[in-house]
């Protein structure tokens, strides 16, 4: 593999935490401003992908283990369905809002939407990263 230039490597290292932060911001403010779970999740995932491209997948996998990412993805999926069932058991319909709406315009508001945003965001982010690991590892090992 060709060496990646120092500029790219150093910038990626400095940029990486901010990208994660920006992803989290988009996820958590999805109900107030442009953005949302999927968009934030994609930025979250592409931060990990960028790190993987620059530092190599093996080094990235030490920090973000595939086991853990895949666990987050599976649990996120389960939480989404269980949220639907909870709404039903609490007397409403499937996926109906069972969390109080709170003060409109602040971050902890909008009831279930915030939590579903978090679920979708982390699921998409981790899912994209795991798929990237698999695709890269499959191509490089032989």
């Amino acid at each position, binding site marked *: 593999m060709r060496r990646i230039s120092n500029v790219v490597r150093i910038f990626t290292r400095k940029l990486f935490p901010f990208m994660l932060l920006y992803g989290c911001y988009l996820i958590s403010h999805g109900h107030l401003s442009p953005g949302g779970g999927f968009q934030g999740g994609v930025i979250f995932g592409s931060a990990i992908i960028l790190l993987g491209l620059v530092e190599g997948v093996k080094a990235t996998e030490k920090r973000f283990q595939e086991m853990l990412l895949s666990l987050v993805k*599976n649990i996120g999926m389960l939480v989404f*369905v269980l949220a639907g*069932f909870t709404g039903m058991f609490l007397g409403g*319909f499937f996926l*109906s*809002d069972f969390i109080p709406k709170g003060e409109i315009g602040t971050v902890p508001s909008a009831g279930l939407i915030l939590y579903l945003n978090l679920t979708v965001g982390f699921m998409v982010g981790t899912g994209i990263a795991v798929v990237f690991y698999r695709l890269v590892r499959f191509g490089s090992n032989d």
Partner: protein
Amino acid sequence: MTNAPILIIAIPLLAAFLTHLTKYARARRGAELVAFSALLASAYFLLTTAPVVLSDQVIKYNLGGWSAPFGISLQLDGLSFFFSAMVLGVGLLILVYSLGIYLYARRYYSLLLIAIAAILGIVLTRDIFNMYVFFEMLAVASYVLITYKHKPRTIIASFKYLVMTEATWVFFLLAIALLYSLTGSLNMDVIAAQLPQIYQAQPHMVYLIFSIMLISFGIKCGMFPLHTWIPEANSQAPTPVSGLLSGLILKVGLYAMLRVFFLFFGSTLLAQGVGNIIIFIGIISLIFGAGMALVQVELKRLLAYSSIGQIGFILVGLGLATQWGLQGALFHIFNHAMIKTALFFCAGIIISQTGFWRLNQMKGIWRQMPGVTFAFCLLSLAVIGIPPSNGFVSKFFIIEAVLLKQNCLIMFCLFLGILLTAACYFRVIQTFFSPSEFHHKQDFIPQPVGHFEHLATYIFTFLCVVIGLFPTVIINLIQPAVRVLLP
């Protein structure tokens, strides 16, 4: 207010994720247990709605509590009840077959449950975009299931299926966009209420939407010019997946045609004879499928081509859009789902025990496997439509409908199709009972086939015979469905 409609879909969906999580639990055969109990629970909730639905009432369910045109709503009526019952019944037996000797991984059960949940979602939904999402879910699950055994040919088959389907379904999304631009809603009831007036003002747009939908659903159900993915995918997939593809996934395209065409275009296009196009396509599919099945050398490819022919038969009944025609089409959908799945099971058992794929290597196999051969013969008679079988009843209905229409050409083509089917299956039966000695493959270790595989096959065969003797049980189920389509 009953929660049954969503529970029918959501329980298999939840089970799909739980199945995947059993890898953390280290339970032996945990995945199978979860999958089986989920389908049983789903079937139980379907049965609780039977008294209401079969008395021609409709159960509506608003998801999230948002009232109908704004949120997504589900509807359980006669037609969706009939299809859900078929899907759950055949799905359970596919699951029984999968329990056998060959150990399928957890991911297999997860994807199988996702596929079944997606079919149930398509069947119950009342929102056109939601239908698209569930169609994609079903498609993704089936692409992956086809490649399950990692044979190189399955991967190419899956790739071909994927590219064809996705390229077409982009146009389906275009049709949804056009419908949305015309009516400002995605709810099927709202669209259906507004479409007749729009047809008066902008007929071209409605024709465009109809043709796009015909092609999109046609590629799912394998009507003639769009069938090319079926033979390769069906013959190369693992046996239970072949059963799923031929038995259920092809039928979902037919369901969508029945539901969407009769709801949206029932009073406009179908009343003006657009059904003749469907009849024409159906006849071509019938003769092409049956004819191609006649010249196949591999058993599973033969069955796959025969599926195309039978779908053509159903399309003829669907295009007639009369009481008898729809009754026959629905009955034949039900019969074909059972018969073709069981035939694929028989072929799977034969192939895994002998290692032979080609028909001419299976000469005299009845001495080795008398039970499976006998089941195969009974099922073949049912596909052809020989009287004491269920296939006879449904084909009789469709032919009766054509007779009432007094169209000799369609009649002739149908009989030609039946003759070709008969020729093709009698050829198989003749090979099986050929007097020459059956030779085992050199140094081939037969994969053992367990009781579950045989059990699933025999249950299907038994049901085919019983339904052939007492067809009124199923006709009572079909009557409400026909009343939904032709009010």
